[in-house]
């Protein structure tokens, strides 16, 4: 992963839907800048021109400020445009027209303090049933060992592999508290609400290695609830799935595997002793 793609403004957008979001952010900021600079010039001008000095007096009669009415009307019209011309349609298109499940790569994301469990349905295309009572150290997501659909499920931790140029639906949920599934370069953000499964989709248009972040305070390890997204060719993606498919016909997921690619560890200064257990 290349640190250099991240700077002081929006990072590269590798999603197909992100253009609208970036466009809106850009339009809004130009609008804000225009208003602020316009107001600012007037502001500094009046402060200088109407400063108290010998011989200068204030005007009692209110000024006829028809110009300000035009500005206010202009603000209203432009905000209406931002709202109904850009934001609402962009949101509606993204939220109301998700790709068909049959045409997409389906992934379940099960968040927990402080990791992202990434589940692929395996060859059968069906996710195994999960339930809290099956959760164990070697079965973090609680796959039902008796459910045949789960036998071939591929479970990864903090590592999301997706093919490029193909819609991906990540259905997010949480085992414990609220997290937020955030992939900045894909313009994806969705709170994971315990008790709910919420689908979020994207389609990557470039290959590469990027970051998953947690955007919602989820406890003392919130800051390191970091994952990797690897966007790769369909062939590499198939290879990844095959390599990580469970070997034995048991429902046991491979123990949280070492990442398929070396993931650079961030330079976190002296290892801190951190108690992992959340308090009751």
């Amino acid at each position, binding site marked *: 992963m290349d640190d250099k793609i*991240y700077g*002081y*403004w*929006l990072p590269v957008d590798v999603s197909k839907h992100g253009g609208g*979001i970036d466009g*809106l952010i850009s339009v*809004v900021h130009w609008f804000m800048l225009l208003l*602020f600079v316009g*107001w600012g010039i007037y502001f500094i001008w*009046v402060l200088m021109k*109407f*400063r*108290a000095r010998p011989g200068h007096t*204030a*005007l*009692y009669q*209110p*000024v006829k*400020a028809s110009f*300000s009415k035009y500005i*206010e009307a202009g*603000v*209203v019209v432009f*905000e209406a445009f931002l709202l109904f011309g850009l*934001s*609402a349609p962009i*949101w*509606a298109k*993204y*939220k109301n027209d998700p790709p068909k499940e049959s045409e997409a790569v389906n992934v379940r994301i099960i968040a*927990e*303090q402080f990791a992202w469990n990434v589940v692929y349905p395996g060859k059968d295309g069906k996710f195994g049933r999960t339930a*809290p009572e099956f*959760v*164990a150290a070697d079965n973090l997501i609680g796959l039902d060992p008796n459910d045949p659909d789960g036998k071939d499920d591929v479970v990864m931790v903090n590592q999301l592999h997706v093919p490029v140029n193909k819609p991906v639906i990540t259905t997010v949920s949480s*085992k*414990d508290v*609220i997290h937020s599934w*955030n992939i*900045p370069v894909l*313009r994806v*953000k*969705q*709170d994971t*609400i315990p008790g709910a499964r919420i689908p979020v989709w994207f389609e990557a248009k470039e290959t590469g290695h990027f*970051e998953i972040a947690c*955007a*919602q*305070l989820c*406890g*003392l390890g*919130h*800051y390191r609830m*970091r994952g990797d997204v690897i966007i790769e060719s369909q062939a590499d993606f198939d290879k990844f799935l095959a390599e990580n498919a469970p070997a034995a016909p048991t429902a046991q997921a491979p123990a949280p595997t070492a990442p398929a690619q070396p993931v650079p560890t*961030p330079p*976190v200064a002296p290892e*801190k002793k951190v*108690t992992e257990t*959340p*308090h009751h």
Partner: protein
Amino acid sequence: MSVNANGHAETADAHAHGHADHGGAHHELPFWQKYIFSQDHKVIGIQYAVTALVFLFFGFTLMMLMRWQLAYPGRAMPFIGSLLTNGMPGGVMQPEFYNQLGAMHGTIMVFLGIVPLAVGGFGNYVMPLQIGAPDMAFPKLNMFSYWVFLPGGVVMLSSFLVEGGAAQSGWTSYPPLSDIATKGQTVWLLAMVLLITSSLLGSINFIVTIVQMRAKGLTMWRLPFFVWAQFVTSFLLLLAFPPLEAASVLQLMDRVAGTSFFLPSGLVISGEVLKVAGGGNPLLWQHLFWFLAHPEVYVLILPALGIVAEVLANNIRKPLWGYRLLVYATIFLGFMSFVVWAHHMFMTGMGTTMSTFFQTTTMIISIPSVIILTCFLISLYGANIRFTTPMLFAVAFLPMFAIGGLTGLPLGLTASDIYLHDTFYVIGHFHYVVAPGTIFAMFAGIYYWYPKATGRKMNDTLGRIHFWVSFVAINGVFMPMFFQGMAGLSRRLYDPTVYAHGRGVQPLNVVISWSVWLLALGQLPFIWNFFSSIRGGVKVSINPWDSTTLEWAAPSPPPHGNFLTDPVVYRDPYEYSVPGKATDFSPQFVEG
């Protein structure tokens, strides 16, 4: 006999103690009644203000600690680190401690700092004087409000001492995290119940006082804008706080009585199935919380706008432009603030209909804010601007509040919020509203009304040093946050350098942290000035700013009962530079 606009004898009688029969200041109260359990709105106002300032500085100190960790993650903090052995063994901050500091910073600044300062302090001290009343409608209730607030604040701070430390689930306390958090969260909830109760009692008192106890001739349309701002604020407090009080009790029950209001079934906490009934919904808390906390934003900003209006009018030496428009905009803002709360929750899985509704209301609420700001800006045209110390803060408030308001736009629009939600952009946005915004207005108010409360002026040179250092430093603190947010950096991260996109903007964290420490240094002249001027300030007349509103008719400091003779109001609040008058100000209380 004190007079009020409506001639309600009961209300007036309730106030007869101490000023009608005994002629004001002659009624000597024992020390503890005069200064501790006082029923005088001015003493209570000062109690609130000083307590709130202390809490504000404490909340700021917490942030100064966090800022070390953010600028130099994992590095041992020199000197101070060795004092806080629990949270910072070896001087290195622990993530638990960082989260406690974060949650308590937000809570203290909002509930123990700004609200009590803006409403309890300024509202209590200034409002009755500005309406020409001898006191609040219910002086005992007023005293009680303060004595519920103070224990609430003490309980809140004491939570640092309980096992596991203070609350650490953010000032928003989202369950399930807060439901399973350490004991500090229980203390947080208990303290919140006290603080909310205090605000509720205060708000009723304010409303009744403003409606019932205005001086003769003081119609609603002659009220200073500050009083209008307090009036609308009181309704917000009265209507918005009960849901949070209820929600706090529900969360308390979840924590101590085994209920599951906010806990769904089947939670697995660190490998163990949580043994609760389940069936609750964590989003319920968010709805209840934000139903309070969005109007709360306006509770934080409206009194500030009121103070800015007073200081502006006084220093531009002309009437505020669009006084009625300001009032209508403020009332509309108050109404609208109740229907925008879910814009804090766009990322919780909201559908298109709901999100469209809430982003529409959010855009609508921006309009009255634009109108208010525009009225202030137009008022400057044709003025005769005196750059007094309070005026510097009020003038600086305008562009910084504008930045806070404008940056709300991309957050209020759902599509751009997808990217910006929960990033540092949000932190920059709301801090521009409440820190360079509200807190600057508070400083303007302190410098402006200090002569009324003490009979002396604060030192101008120190005031100017305070202003310029604060102005530069505070922008150094919050401006870089927009760039961090743009880079995608999440808020509430103990160590942002874990992320590549955090490492990209890490140099800004160093800039921000040093600006925070500079900002702290910049407050030292203020603190010195504030205390030393009580005895050492230059003595001034009762109306040193040549002002027009009623509080300047009372002696400085006003005695118990406020006015030596009952004031009568003859005109609008901001009659400055009236043509044909000898002076450039025509006070409300002077006939002819």
